[in-house]
């Protein structure tokens, strides 16, 4: 009952062979090895499993593997550039927006999805964009600061 699924992950074409009830989360972690994608609640409420699918933030725990056929996926492993950390990653470090780090991949991807579409968001817009990513450590203040710092740096 396994089926072949072809998708692009962090710029590279991938082919996996899985049962259809596996999720994109399972595929990314277990089949391809991108364990930066975290499993949290597995019901679409915590955002730890957030990845970008064709540029949009999505809970990978709620996408069946076959539904990812032909899609372009970005995980946290694909955010870093050739020259080093992405400005968002750098800002998270500089603003102490990381404590245990479990929410961080999802947070950065949701923030990246926002800034790619809206490079200079208001604080309210940042909070709305991140409202699907829960953090149990930081209280969100530093995370929002980090995202706003990137947006103020300009293009």
């Amino acid at each position, binding site marked *: 009952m396994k089926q072949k699924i072809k998708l692009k992950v962090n710029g590279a074409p991938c082919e996996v062979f899985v049962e259809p*009830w596996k999720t994109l989360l399972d595929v990314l972690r277990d089949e391809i090895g991108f364990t930066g994608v975290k499993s*949290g609640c*597995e019901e*679409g409420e915590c*955002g730890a499993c957030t990845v970008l*699918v064709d540029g949009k933030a999505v809970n990978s725990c*709620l996408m*069946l593997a*076959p539904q990812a056929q032909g899609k372009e996926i970005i995980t946290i492993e694909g955010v870093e550039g050739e020259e080093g950390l992405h400005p968002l990653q750098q800002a998270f470090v500089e603003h102490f927006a990381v404590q245990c780090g479990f929410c961080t991949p999802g947070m950065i991807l*949701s923030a990246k999805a926002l800034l790619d579409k809206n490079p200079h968001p208001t604080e309210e817009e940042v909070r709305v964009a991140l409202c699907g990513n829960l953090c149990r450590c930081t209280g969100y203040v530093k995370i929002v600061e980090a995202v706003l710092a990137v947006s103020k740096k300009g293009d």
Partner: protein
Amino acid sequence: MNTAGLGSQWRHPKFEYLEARTVEEACSLLSQYKDKAKLIAGGTDLLVSMRRGKITPLYVINVKTIPNLDYIHYDGDGLRIGALATLSEIESSPLIRDRFPIIADSAHQIGTPQVRNVGTIGGNLCNAAPSADMAPPLIGLGAKAKLKGPKGERAVALEEFFTGPGEPRLQIGEMLIEIQASNPPPHTQGIYLKLPARTAIDLAVVGVAAVVTLDTKGANIVDTKIVLGAVAPTPIRARQAENVIRGKTINDGLIEEAAQIAAEEAKPISDVRGSASYRKEMVKVLTKGAIRQAIASA
């Protein structure tokens, strides 16, 4: 399935996965497999229910593979939204924000950005939760649901589309394909208020949509629809509350009275999100607020 962090109550559903490339194919598969099959679009309700063991389909039919069912069209008659339009597309559509802002606003209040990016209007309505946030505003606009099945197409008033919690009015083999909302009369405005307010993720504890049409002077309420969500087995019209203000001059005392009557028309249950008495009280508060805000912006 990755089991890290899962409680022991999670099921690990297995099923046969099918893809529909056309509406006809989806209908045909539904006719064939009947109540052993479920359609999946965004999956944000279905997969959660399956993991909780509440729904156990043997066949899961992906309809996201049907092209051209995610349109948002507007013409002289009004708005037509394809059932697969995502909540993100709806909340950000300039057309909907400009002409039917209550629809964009209610889509925005569902879930989180991640959920809205894959969740669809069709899914929200066919999941048919009593708290479905798209329902009260669309019912307030007199929207129709276009259904397609083996016997052809038919339109159902959205107000009639819900027969019980989780029970949309779909015959075997039928699929929701479009939502239609006619252009409202001039000086019409609608507001959807949801409790909890401005908190992401949560289902509505109470939802109230108030749509009012004023006369040209803005002094009288020519017509109104007041629709309550999450306080009955289905979304319901608060018809007696409507009668209090319909055809009357705008008057705060009447609005209070209408809000009180709406609270009496509500039939909420007590559950983990709120007691029945709290929900009734909040119906009153939200109805008052929604009517006032709708009047102010009409």
